Structure formats: structure tokens, C-alpha cells
């Protein structure tokens, strides 16, 4: 029963949504409005999952005094402090909450990903090898696109940005369309499997 009732809900709602997509009847609109108002009321609670999972992981590290547990304490402190600052002083421009975003979260978030620039450069030097004809084609296409994107490409010859644009609009388009069609069919199949109760991993473990 613990699995069956949720499954029945998904299947019933799913088929009602299929019907709603095709039938613009008053009842179908009413169903949709009901679903939206309930979804809205459920939505804020999803944030609990994130908070709980973070608290549990780091709480366990602290209580077990695992190596580097001090950093976990810092994470939890930052979590509580940031959350509290939003409740106490508000979340608009000029509040401590916004200050934390602009001077702590934003610079670190953007720097984390910028590290990848170094890694890709190192990989370009150490790993991108023209080992086969296919790999050579890949590298040549990449080099043309790279040059085509920057002003230097245009300065060398107008053919560089034009070739780059042709690569993107013709062979690349065909490749991505072939892959997208496969993915699109796959997604439709997965959705159908959920709808028919064949795919159930979203229910999680247990009985």
C-alpha cells in the first residue's frame, strides 16, 4: 500500500494531464487550477530536504569529531547565520543578507567554476591528441570554432568566422539534431514509463 497509493496518484494525475493537454473543457481547466493551487502550497516545503540533508551530513561529522570537522561547524554556522540575517533584517537591497550574497556567495560561486579554465588549458596541453582521423577532425573543428568566436579570427580572414558559422549551422546542427531526436524519444519513453507505473525509482527505496 505504501507504494501502490502513490503510484495510483501519479497514474491518475498523469492521465488527467494527458486529457487536459488535448481537451480544453471547463472541467479540465478546473482540474488544472486545482492542481496549481495545491502545488503552490506544497512548493515551499521542498527546501526542507536541502536543509535536512546538509545538517545531517555535517552534524554527523561534528558529533563524530571526524577529520576536519571544524569546517562542518563553519558550514552549519554560515547556514544558520545567513538564514537568520534574512529573517531579521530582510532580504532587500542594502541588508546584511544581500551583503553576504554579493561579497561572499557570489565571488566564491563564480570563482569555483572559473578554476575549470585552468584545468581545460592543462588538458589541452596534455590530453587532446590527434590519435586518429576522427580525433583530428574534432580538434580541427574545435580550433576553427575557437578562432571564429574571437575578433582575431575575423582579423586573419573573414573565412574563419564564416567557416565556424557553417560548421555550427550544418554538420554540428545535423549531429545535434540526430542526438536530440534520440534524447527526445528517450525522454518521451521515460515519461510514458512513469505514466504507466513501469518506472518507479522516484518513489525511493523501501516498501
Amino acid at each position: 500500500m505504501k507504494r501502490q497509493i502513490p503510484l495510483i496518484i501519479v497514474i491518475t494525475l498523469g492521465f488527467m494531464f494527458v486529457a487536459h493537454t488535448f481537451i480544453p473543457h471547463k472541467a479540465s481547466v478546473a482540474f488544472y487550477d486545482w492542481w496549481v493551487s495545491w502545488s503552490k502550497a506544497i512548493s515551499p516545503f521542498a527546501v526542507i530536504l536541502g536543509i535536512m540533508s546538509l545538517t545531517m551530513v555535517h552534524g554527523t561529522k561534528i558529533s563524530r569529531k571526524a577529520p576536519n570537522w571544524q569546517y562542518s561547524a563553519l558550514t552549519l554556522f554560515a547556514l544558520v547565520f545567513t538564514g537568520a540575517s534574512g529573517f531579521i533584517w530582510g532580504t532587500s537591497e542594502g541588508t546584511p543578507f544581500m551583503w553576504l550574497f554579493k561579497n561572499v556567495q557570489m565571488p566564491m560561486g563564480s570563482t569555483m567554476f572559473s578554476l575549470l579554465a585552468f584545468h581545460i588549458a592543462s588538458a589541452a596541453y596534455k590530453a587532446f591528441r590527434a590519435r586518429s582521423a576522427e580525433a583530428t577532425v574534432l580538434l580541427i573543428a574545435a580550433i576553427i570554432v575557437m578562432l571564429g568566436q574571437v575578433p582575431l579570427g575575423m582579423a586573419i580572414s573573414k573565412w574563419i568566422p564564416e567557416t565556424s558559422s557553417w560548421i555550427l549551422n550544418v554538420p554540428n546542427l545535423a549531429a545535434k539534431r540526430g542526438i536530440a531526436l534520440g534524447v527526445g524519444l528517450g525522454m518521451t519513453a521515460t515519461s510514458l514509463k512513469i505514466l504507466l507505473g513501469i518506472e518507479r525509482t522516484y518513489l525511493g527505496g523501501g516498501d
Partner: protein
Amino acid sequence: MFETISNLIAAFLTLCIFSFLYKDNPFYKFAEALFIGVSMGYAIPLVYENAFLPFVYQPIFLQGKLIILIPSLMGVLYIFRFSRNLSWLSRYPIVFGMGIVGMGVPMSMHSSVLVQMRSAMLPLDNINTALIFIGTVTILLYFFFSKEHKGVYGKFTNVGVWYMMIGFGASFGYTVMARISLLIGRIQFLLGDVLGLIK
């Protein structure tokens, strides 16, 4: 003055993250831990203000729509996700949202498959359209794994591989660009906003 101090703190944290390039170190670990906590922490008041107040508190307590208590209680069931015995309760808020997958079937079939196929079947009146057509068909053949890629069939699928290599090359070129852009953004911050060296 306040602006300068704020910028310096942001710059210090930026450098803490960059220090990872040399090797893992306490500065990096400090910044990473702080980042995770702040990121999660600041979602809470935002969700409270933008979702809890307008969609739960106001309808129930100000407008007296008591029926909204049912989905709200359903939302509370998320708490049991990590419980060993009661985790099944958390399935209810999840499946309620899953229902919309029913709309996804016809809609994604239309946009991701049918419209794409229609454009792949344009009259082959110029070389590029013909090339796109050949590429799309040969790639689809390549992904057809029930038949061994040998002989004439193998030649066709091989054409598909070449198309894909060009496609991956284009993606790779763009990826290099993207990663470099992110680094440029950070260095612009350090040189421009903090040190005032970019005019």
C-alpha cells in the same frame, strides 16, 4: 570605505578559492565550507517570503481557505524523507508534482521529435540542407544498435561518426570559450573592481 572593505573581503575569498590551484589547503577548505553554508542558508528566507507567505500563510490564515491545509500538510511530509520507517510518507508531495509528466509526453513528443523531424525533411534544394539530411539520418542509423555496424551499413554509420566528431569539436570549442570567460570575469573583478586597473 565600506565598499572597499566589502570588495577586499570578496577578493580574499576569491583568492582562497584560487589557492586550490597550487594545492588543497586550509584557506580553500575554509572558503568551500563557508560557500556551502551561505548558499543553502540564503534559500530559506527567500522561500519563506516568496512561497510560504503568499501560497500557504495568506490563503489559510488571511483568506480562510482551509482546504489549503491539505497540500500544506502534504508538503510537511518531506520531513520524513530521511526517516527509516516513515520515508514512504514523503512520496506524497513528490508524486503530486510528478503528475504533470502526463503533459510532458505529448508536448515533448511534439517539440523535441516532430518539429525537429519536420525540419529534417525540408526539400533538398541546396547543398547544406542535403548535408544536414545525410548527417541526421546517418547518426540515427549509428544509434540503431540492433544491427551490427558492418559492410555498407557500417559505411553509413561511419559517416554519422564523422558528423558527430565535428559536432563534438564545435561543442569543445565553445566549452573552452565558456571556461575562459568565467576566469576572465573573476580577473576583471580583481583587476577592475578591487584594484581599479581596468578603465
